[in-house]
């Protein structure tokens, strides 16, 4: 059995990682962990890109996965900067304290 047979299971793995990441976003209150869960979701998408690229015999899947990694890095930089700035003012490290959207 070659790698090809595993392709649907790779999609299933991606779905699992994505949904577990989503679960983490929902239940964790620590914003840093929430960010890690988002990274997990992005990685799940990367698996889909790369395995489809392999399946369709084209590099474009890898190119897009590369773009996703770059965007994820940028997002982490800005996101963590925001987190440090928000919590530097002395708040608890709890995402549920940030409810200014309610006003």
């Amino acid at each position, binding site marked *: 059995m070659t790698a090809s047979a595993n392709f649907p299971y790779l999609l299933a793995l991606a779905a699992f990682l994505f949904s577990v990441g*989503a679960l983490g976003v*929902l239940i964790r*209150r620590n914003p840093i962990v929430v960010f890690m869960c988002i990274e997990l979701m992005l990685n799940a998408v990367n698996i889909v890109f790369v395995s489809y690229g392999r399946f369709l015999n084209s590099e474009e899947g890898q190119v897009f996965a590369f773009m996703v990694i770059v965007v994820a890095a940028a997002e982490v930089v800005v996101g963590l900067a925001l987190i440090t700035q928000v919590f530097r003012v002395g708040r608890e490290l709890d995402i549920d304290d940030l409810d200014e959207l*309610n006003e």
Partner: protein
Amino acid sequence: MTTSTVAVLSGLILLLPLAGALLNALVGWRLSRRVVNAIGTGSILAAFLVACVMLAQVVGAPDGAKSASAHLWQWLDLGTGGLRVGVDVTLDPLSAVMLMVITGVGLLIHVYSVGYMEHDRGIARFFSYMNLFIFSMLVLVLAADLLILIIGWALVALSSYLLIGFWYERPSAVVAARKAFITQVAGDVALVIAAFLIVVHIGTLSMPGIFAAAPSFASGGLLITVVCSLLAIGAFAKSAQFPLHTWLPDAMEGPTPVSALIHAATMVTAGVYLIARFHPLFDRAPVAQGMVACVGIGTAVMAGVIALSQVDIKRVIAYSTMSQIGLMIFAVGIGAYSAGMFHLATHAVFKALLFMAAGNVIHALHDEQDIRLMGGLSTNLRRTELCFLSGTFALAGIPLFAGFFSKEGLLGFGLTNGPGAFPWVLYLVGVGINVLTGLYAFRLWATVFRGEPQTARVYAAREAPRVMLVPVAILALLSAFLGLILGVWSLVIHDNFLIGVFARFLSPVFTTPASGPLAVDLSTGTAILAGIVGTLGSLLGAGLAARIWLQRNPDPSAVTARLPRALPQLAYNKFYFDEIYDALLVRPLVALARAARRVVEPRFMNSGVQTVSDACSELGAWVRDYQTGLIRDYASYMIAAAGVFVVATLVLVSR
């Protein structure tokens, strides 16, 4: 004259005023007054130059090719067999004449406005409205499709509304603007119904299509009569003809340049243009034509009588406008289209002149409009008086002035072409109008400029600045010599003396029908007789006016005392039309509305509306519980939805 030339030229002439209007409307408030003036008048100057090129194109075109249309773009297409409306333009002698009138007189009035509106803060708004008006009027005139014409028709009503209500702090101006708009919309409705009937019968709204299909209407049949009557009602509303005339005098609430441009020279004559443009239909509806002619001449008499009794300088001129337009409507009603158009052109010149000269007077007297408080202005306003006098002569039809040629030419047709069994009856009424015109024209001049000054302000009056005098002077020269030049030219080419060149120029449009106007040769004895009698009427009126008012202390009450007492009273109150309409239309409507508010609304409307609003606030309260402001809650909604979507996709897409 190729299609592409027409397309480019008409695109230019339409876009220039529109661009000026938009520019002044959007950024005018932050530009300096000088720049605003330059944009406002510059765009019209450019449009005037384009109009000159267009006129040259028409004049230069060989006979038989004087008319050209261009298709700018397809606006509406309902497929095969359905209605198709193209934004089409037509350039032919008729529209060329209108273009020259609109942009030429419009340009002079714009220049005049620079001086007249000098101290007004809303100058950018003013010029943007004025340019919008010019644009709308050009759309109306150039349209080669009835629907586009109606759009222009409604747009001029809009700009007229905006300009009458320009000084919106005055309640009277706002009321007058509303009145003008509502009355004109009544005419728009008639026009739209006429368009419906035409579409149902012919299947197209394109004017060439309509005119080509005109023979499919039974001549004198019911349908064509109804269509033409509706078109005529639209024209009456726009041209302030009985019974839709009451808005025009009130429209004088607007600034004087507006009165000159819209309510004297251009917009109010659009009705004449409409009937002339749709002459292939009107030629087949003698009943409607007769109705038009009678309404025109009736309005002319009525407005002339009222003009004689009014004391507001602008209202006198407004009623004289109504009267002169009545004559034009009469002319197009008896099939004398060229004569009507000629009078339209000369009238635009001398009536704009009269309004602007009156504007000078009002300006000099610091917004005094009551002629009883004027008098003796000739010493201080010499130049204005000279110009005003030129306009008065032209209006009264004194020989060799512009109005003489057009009015006598127009009435000459009345002798032979009038409707009904006695065609000359209306002509005799026309001679009576000549007398009236001479009376009120010279009365106005004599009361304002001659006699003893009635107030101290007259002594302090100062002549208008040059920017306001030059346009008036140009128009004064035109109204003195335009008719003469064209008349001499006509003599030179051995044609009809009175309106020859003009009629010849327009003849490609008004192709002579068998019994049509141009079959009558005005150089015959009858026509000359008609002209002489008419002129005598005008001179009689002028002489009477001089006799009554040209004294140091005129006493017109000695004259009115000899008339039945009711007549001056009726005339002064404009025959009580406003009161009659108020009692017949306004009050019942207001009463109905009050009743609806008292009965219908609480019983039938409120419960339903209340239910809807309650439901909305309940929904809002319910949704608000979910707006916690916590990002994780929002994410959970998103993910729940995504989960539903994923499962649905897998279930629905799987085979």
